[in-house]
C-alpha cells in the first residue's frame, strides 16, 4: 500500500475515534466553543487530506459534515441531538468508506447524495423542524425520536444504532471516566468485511449493532493490525526525550574519549571504543527515527499549486527536486508553514498572468521550482519562480507609509536592499493581497520561524526574471556542529552554519587588518569586510594578548550581512548539544546557549546575530545586500552607497576611486622612486612596482613624501601617484556619463563637490599592457574566470564596461568591430559568454549573432545584446537572431545580473 495512503488511514482512523468522543461531549455541552472548534478542525483535516489524496467521495461527505459544523461553530445552529446524529452518521459513512479503502485501496462505487442532502438541508436550517430539538438530554432524545432522521431511499434508518453506541460511550465515559476506551470499539466495528457496493449506508449502519453482540469480522481486524504492525505512532515527546538522552550520552562519550586520549595503554581503551561505536550508532538510529524526507512537507504543494492556478487563472508548473532529502522532523514541522507560504507567494505575487507573460516574451506557463539538497551539514531549500520579480516601487512606497524608512533612506537604497523590507514585521503590500496570499502569515513570520531553528533565508530577485528564496537550515537542532575558537584565553563555540570561511590575517600580506577611524576592516576578494573584535565585543579584559594582525578571522554571515569575527585561535569543530543559558544570563544577546565540551569544560555558544547587532549593524545595514559583492563597485553605483577614496592629483579638483579597488595605501619617500625604461617604478615588497600618474603632464615629486594608491591583482602591484589622500567617504555614486576623458569614468558629486571618478582599468592598462590581455591566467588568482568577449565600437563604452566586468570576475577580451570579434572567434579563441553592441558600423550586432549561431562552436554560447534602442521590435529581433538576452546599454546592473545568471555562479564569488 502507498505510504501516503497508509498514513492517511492510520491518522484518519485516529481522528475519527477522537471525533466520536468529542461529539458526544458536544452534545452534552452544546455551548462549549473550544469543543466545537476542535471538532471542526478534525473534520476539516479529514476533508483536506481526502481532497489531497483524490478521494472525492470521502471529501464530499466530510465537506458536508464540515459545513454543518461550521454553522454550529458560528452559532447559527445549536448542537442538538439531530445535529450530532447527523454528524455521527457522516463519520460512520466515512469510516465505512475508509474500511473499503483499506482493503481495496480504492473508494467504493456509489454516492452519498442522500446523506449529503440531509446534512446540507440541516445546515440550511431545514432540519430544524426535526422533533429532536425538544429534548436536550441524549438518552431521552434517543428514546423519543426513533424515527427522527428521514429514512433515505434505501428505506433504512441508520441513526439509532449509532446513537446507542455513542450514548453508551458517553455514559461509560461519564461513569467510569474511561474516555479513551470509548472510541475504540467504534472504529474496529466500523471496519467490516468487503462492503457490497451500492447499499453502503446499510452496511455502515449495521456493524455497530454487531459490535455489541459479536466480534468484528476477522478480516477487518487483520487489515487494521497489519497497518498497525508496520508502523507505530510514537508520541513526539518520547522521541524528544530519547534524543536528549542520546545527546547526553554523546557528550559523556566525548568526555570519556578525551580522557582516554591522555592515558595511553588504558584497559578501558577497548570497551570505550566499543561504547564509542555503539553510541554513534545509537545516535544515528535515534536521529533516523526523526528524519523524514522533505517531500513530506511538499506533498501538499502540488494540490496547492493546482488550486491556485485555477483560482488565479494562471498556468503554473511546479517542479520539485530533491524530495528525498531528509531532515529532522522537528525542523521539517517548523519549515512546513514557511515553505507553503513562500510557494504561495511565488505563485500569487511572483508569477504573472498568462497574457502578461506572453507580452514579456515568456512562456505562458510559469514555473515554481522547489529544490532541496544537502550542503555541508545543512539543507538548502530553494523556492524560485520565473515571474516578474518583486514590485520594488510598491515595496518602497509601503516602507515609507509604514514608517520603516524615510524617503531619503529609500532613495538611497538599491532594489535588493529595499526588497529586504518584505521581511519587516507587519509588512504586507496590502494592495497585492489576494485570497491566496497575505492571509495573516507574513514574510516576517517566515523569517522568524526559519531563524528560530538556526536557519537563514535569503532573497534574490531580478526584475522581470523572477524571485528566489534560499533557505539554509541545519539538519537537526539537537546536535550542531560548532567551531571552537579562542579569544583572550577564553574559548567559545560558533555554530558552523553561520561560518562562511576562515581567514588568517597576516601583517605583511594581502590580508591585513586595516582601520578606518579605529574600525577594523579586511580586504577580502575585492570586498571590504567589516570586522568585529571578539575581545572588544565581549569586553574580555583590558589587554589584548594577541595582535590584530595575527588574528584569525571567522567570516560569518547573518542574513545578507557578512562580517568577520576576530579571534586569537581556531581549534577544530566539535559536535555540541545546545543547552539554553541560565535565566539570569538570558539577556546577553551574544550567546545563543552553552554546552559542555568533550574535555568537560563549559563553553558559551556565540550568537552571530547578537554579535552583528551589537557591532552596530542595525537591521538596515544588515539587510544591505552585502552578499552581492559587486555592490561596492562603480557598476552598481546607481542607488548603492559605495566607499570611495577621495584624493587629489594633478589639480585641485578632487578625484575618487572606489575603495574596494584599492589594495593598499602607501606613502614613500619620493627619493625612492626609480626609473626603469623611462618609466617610474618603486621597489615594493621585493618586486618592482610600476608607478603611473594621473595624466602624462603630472609632475612626479623628487623629494618629500609621496602618497601612492596601490592596486593589486595576480600578484602584481601598480601604484598611482597622487598629491594627497583627502578622505574616505561613503556616498551614493551617480556618475554623470558625459565625461569621456581617458582615465576617467565620469564625474560625480561627492561630499558636495564635483569629483572625477577615475577609471582604474585605464591606469592598469598603462602599467601593464597585458593586464587584460592574458586569457590563460585567471583573474583574482583563486578563481576560474569566465572568458568574456566584449564587442562595442565605442571606445568609451569598452573602457567603461571592461573594468566593471573585470572586477565582476570576467576575463574580458574586447573587439571594436563585429568583424574583429568574428575573427577572434574563428581564430580558435574560446569564450564563455559574448556581450555585443547592436548598432555598429559595418556588421551589426544582429548579423554578428546570426553568423555566430551558425557556427558549431558558438551555437550554445550565451550572447547578450547591448543597445540604447530598447524598442520591442529590436528586442524581438534580437531574440530571433539568437541573442540570449537584451540589455539596455546603460543598465550596468542588469548586465551583471544577466551575466551572473548565465554563469550561475560568477567566478569572483
Amino acid at each position, binding site marked *: 500500500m502507498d505510504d501516503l495512503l497508509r498514513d492517511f488511514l492510520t491518522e484518519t482512523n485516529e481522528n475519527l475515534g477522537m471525533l466520536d468522543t468529542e461529539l458526544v461531549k458536544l452534545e452534552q455541552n452544546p455551548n462549549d466553543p473550544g469543543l466545537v472548534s476542535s471538532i471542526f478542525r478534525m473534520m476539516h483535516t479529514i476533508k483536506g487530506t481526502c481532497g489531497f489524496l483524490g478521494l472525492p467521495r470521502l471529501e464530499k461527505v466530510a465537506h458536508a459534515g464540515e459545513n454543518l459544523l461550521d454553522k454550529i461553530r458560528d452559532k447559527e445552529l445549536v448542537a442538538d441531538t439531530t445535529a450530532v446524529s447527523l454528524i455521527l452518521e457522516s463519520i460512520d459513512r466515512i469510516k465505512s468508506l475508509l474500511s473499503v479503502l483499506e482493503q481495496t485501496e480504492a473508494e467504493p462505487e456509489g454516492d452519498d447524495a442522500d446523506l449529503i442532502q440531509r446534512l446540507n438541508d440541516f445546515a440550511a436550517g431545514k432540519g430544524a423542524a426535526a422533533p429532536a430539538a425538544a429534548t436536550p438530554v441524549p438518552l431521552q432524545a434517543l428514546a423519543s425520536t426513533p424515527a427522527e432522521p428521514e429514512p433515505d431511499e434505501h428505506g433504512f434508518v441508520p441513526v439509532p444504532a449509532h446513537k446507542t453506541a455513542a450514548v453508551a460511550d458517553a455514559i461509560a465515559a461519564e461513569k467510569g471516566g474511561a474516555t479513551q476506551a470509548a472510541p475504540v470499539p467504534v472504529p474496529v466495528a466500523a471496519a467490516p468485511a468487503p462492503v457490497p457496493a451500492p447499499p453502503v449506508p446499510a452496511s455502515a449502519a449495521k456493524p455497530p449493532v454487531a459490535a455489541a453482540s459479536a466480534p468484528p469480522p476477522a478480516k477487518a481486524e487483520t487489515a487494521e493490525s497489519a497497518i498497525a504492525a508496520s508502523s507505530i505512532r510514537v508520541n513526539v515527546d518520547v522521541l524528544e526525550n530519547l534524543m536528549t538522552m542520546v545527546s547526553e550520552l554523546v557528550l559523556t562519550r566525548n568526555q570519556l574519549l578525551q580522557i582516554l586520549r591522555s592515558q595511553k595503554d588504558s584497559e578501558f581503551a577497548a570497551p570505550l571504543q566499543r561504547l564509542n561505536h555503539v553510541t554513534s550508532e545509537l545516535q544515528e538510529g535515534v536521529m533516523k527515527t526523526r528524519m523524514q524526507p522533505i517531500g513530506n512537507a511538499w506533498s501538499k504543494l502540488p494540490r496547492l499549486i493546482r488550486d491556485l492556478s485555477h483560482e488565479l487563472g494562471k498556468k503554473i508548473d511546479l517542479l520539485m527536486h530533491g524530495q528525498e532529502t531528509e531532515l529532522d522532523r522537528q525542523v521539517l514541522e517548523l519549515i512546513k508553514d514557511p515553505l507553503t507560504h513562500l510557494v504561495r507567494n511565488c505563485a500569487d505575487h511572483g508569477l504573472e498572468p498568462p497574457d502578461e507573460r506572453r507580452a514579456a516574451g515568456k512562456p505562458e506557463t510559469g514555473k515554481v521550482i522547489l529544490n532541496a539538497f544537502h550542503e555541508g551539514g545543512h539543507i538548502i531549500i530553494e523556492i524560485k519562480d520565473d515571474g516578474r520579480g518583486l514590485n520594488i516601487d510598491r515595496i518602497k512606497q509601503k516602507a515609507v507609509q509604514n514608517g520603516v524608512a524615510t524617503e531619503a533612506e529609500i532613495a538611497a537604497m538599491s532594489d535588493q536592499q529595499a526588497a529586504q523590507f518584505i521581511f519587516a514585521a507587519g509588512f504586507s503590500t496590502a494592495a497585492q493581497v489576494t485570497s491566496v496570499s497575505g492571509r495573516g502569515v507574513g514574510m516576517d513570520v517566515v523569517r522568524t520561524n526559519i531563524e528560530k531553528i538556526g536557519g537563514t533565508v535569503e532573497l534574490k530577485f531580478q526584475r522581470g526574471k523572477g524571485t528566489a528564496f534560499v533557505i539554509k537550515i541545519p539538519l537537526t537542532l539537537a546536535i550542531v556542529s560548532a567551531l571552537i575558537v579562542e579569544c583572550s584565553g577564553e574559548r567559545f563555540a560558533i555554530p558552523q552554519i553561520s561560518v562562511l570561511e576562515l581567514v588568517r590575517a597576516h601583517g605583511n600580506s594581502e590580508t591585513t587588518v586595516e582601520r578606518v577611524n579605529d574600525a577594523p576592516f579586511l580586504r577580502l576578494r575585492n570586498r571590504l569586510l567589516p570586522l568585529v573584535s571578539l575581545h572588544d565585543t*565581549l569586553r574580555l579584559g583590558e589587554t589584548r594578548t594577541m595582535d590584530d594582525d595575527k588574528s584569525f578571522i571567522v567570516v560569518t554571515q547573518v542574513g545578507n550581512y557578512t562580517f568577520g569575527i576576530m579571534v586569537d585561535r581556531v581549534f577544530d569543530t566539535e559536535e555540541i548539544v545546545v*543547552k539554553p543559558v541560565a535565566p539570569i544570563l538570558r539577556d546577553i544577546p551574544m550567546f545563543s546557549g552553552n554546552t*559542555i565540551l568533550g574535555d568537560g569544560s563549559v563553553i558559551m555558544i556565540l550568537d552571530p546575530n547578537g554579535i552583528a547587532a551589537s557591532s552596530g549593524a542595525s537591521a538596515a545595514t544588515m539587510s544591505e545586500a552585502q552578499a552581492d559583492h559587486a555592490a561596492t563597485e562603480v557598476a552598481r553605483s546607481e542607488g548603492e552607497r559605495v566607499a570611495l577614496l577621495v584624493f587629489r592629483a594633478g589639480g585641485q579638483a578632487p578625484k575618487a576611486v572606489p575603495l574596494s579597488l584599492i589594495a593598499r595605501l602607501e606613502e614613500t619617500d619620493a627619493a625612492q622612486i626609480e626609473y626603469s625604461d623611462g618609466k617610474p617604478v618603486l621597489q615594493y615588497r621585493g618586486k618592482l612596482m610600476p608607478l603611473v600618474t594621473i595624466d602624462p603632464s603630472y609632475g612626479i615629486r623628487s623629494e618629500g613624501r609621496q602618497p601612492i594608491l596601490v592596486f593589486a591583482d595576480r600578484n602584481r602591484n601598480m601604484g598611482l601617484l597622487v598629491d594627497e589622500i583627502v578622505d574616505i567617504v561613503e556616498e551614493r555614486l551617480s556618475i554623470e556619463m558625459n565625461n569621456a576623458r581617458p582615465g576617467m569614468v565620469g564625474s560625480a558629486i561627492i561630499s558636495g563637490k564635483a569629483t572625477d571618478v577615475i577609471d582604474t582599468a585605464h591606469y592598469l592598462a598603462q602599467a601593464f599592457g597585458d593586464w587584460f590581455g592574458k586569457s590563460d591566467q585567471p583573474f583574482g588568482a583563486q578563481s576560474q574566470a569566465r572568458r568574456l568577449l566584449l564587442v562595442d565600437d565605442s571606445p568609451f563604452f569598452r573602457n567603461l564596461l571592461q573594468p566593471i566586468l573585470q572586477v565582476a570576475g570576467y576575463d574580458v577580451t574586447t573587439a571594436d568591430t563585429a568583424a574583429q570579434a568574428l575573427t577572434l572567434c574563428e581564430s580558435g579563441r574560446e569564450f564563455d559568454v559574448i556581450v555585443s553592441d547592436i548598432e555598429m558600423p559595418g556588421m551589426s550586432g544582429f548579423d554578428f549573432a546570426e553568423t555566430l549561431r551558425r557556427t558549431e562552436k558558438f551555437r550554445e554560447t550565451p550572447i547578450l545584446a547591448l543597445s540604447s534602442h530598447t524598442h520591442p521590435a529590436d528586442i524581438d529581433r534580437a531574440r530571433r537572431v539568437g541573442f540570449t538576452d537584451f540589455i539596455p546599454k546603460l543598465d550596468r546592473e542588469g548586465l551583471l545580473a544577466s551575466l551572473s545568471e548565465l554563469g550561475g555562479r560568477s567566478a569572483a564569488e
Partner: protein
Amino acid sequence: MSNLPAIANKPGAVEAAAAGSDFVTMTVADQLFGIPVLTVQDVLGPQRITRVPLAPPEVAGALNLRGRIVTAIDVRRRLGLPKREGTAAGMNVVVDFKGELYALMVDNVGEVLSLSADAYERNPATLDPRWRDVSAGIYRLKGKLLVVLEVARLLDLKVKRGAEAA
C-alpha cells in the same frame, strides 16, 4: 522588620526560616550563613569555571556538574564584599532554583545545623540593605549569628538595589 514589604511577596521563605529547620552552614568573610538543607543539591570543592563575558559581575561563570551546566554566583560580590585574599580555594554550594542549578561560591562549607524557631529573629533594621535584601532572618547561635540566605533573592540580581529604596 522594616523590610517587610520587600519580602512580603515571598512570605514562604521567611516563614520557613522562622519555623526553624536544618540548615547547611557556610562562611563568607568570616560571617556564618545558612541555607535550608533541602534546597542544597550538592557541595563541591573548587571547580573549573568558565567565565561568561558580559554577565553581571556577581556571575562568576558556568561549571559542569555531572553533565549539567551550573551557573556560579560569587556570593562575596553579591554581598558587596571585597575579593577573597590569599589563594585558598573556595567551596561551591549547589542549589536548585526553578529547575536550574546555581553554585554559590563561598569560602567554606560547615555542617548541617538543626535550629529551633526560638533562636530566630527577623532582619534587624540596621542590617546593610544589600544584606537585608538577601537575608531571610537571623538565628542566634552560641557565640555567633547565622544569616539565613534567601536563595530566590540572592539569585535575583535585578533587585540588588531594591532594598535601598525601601
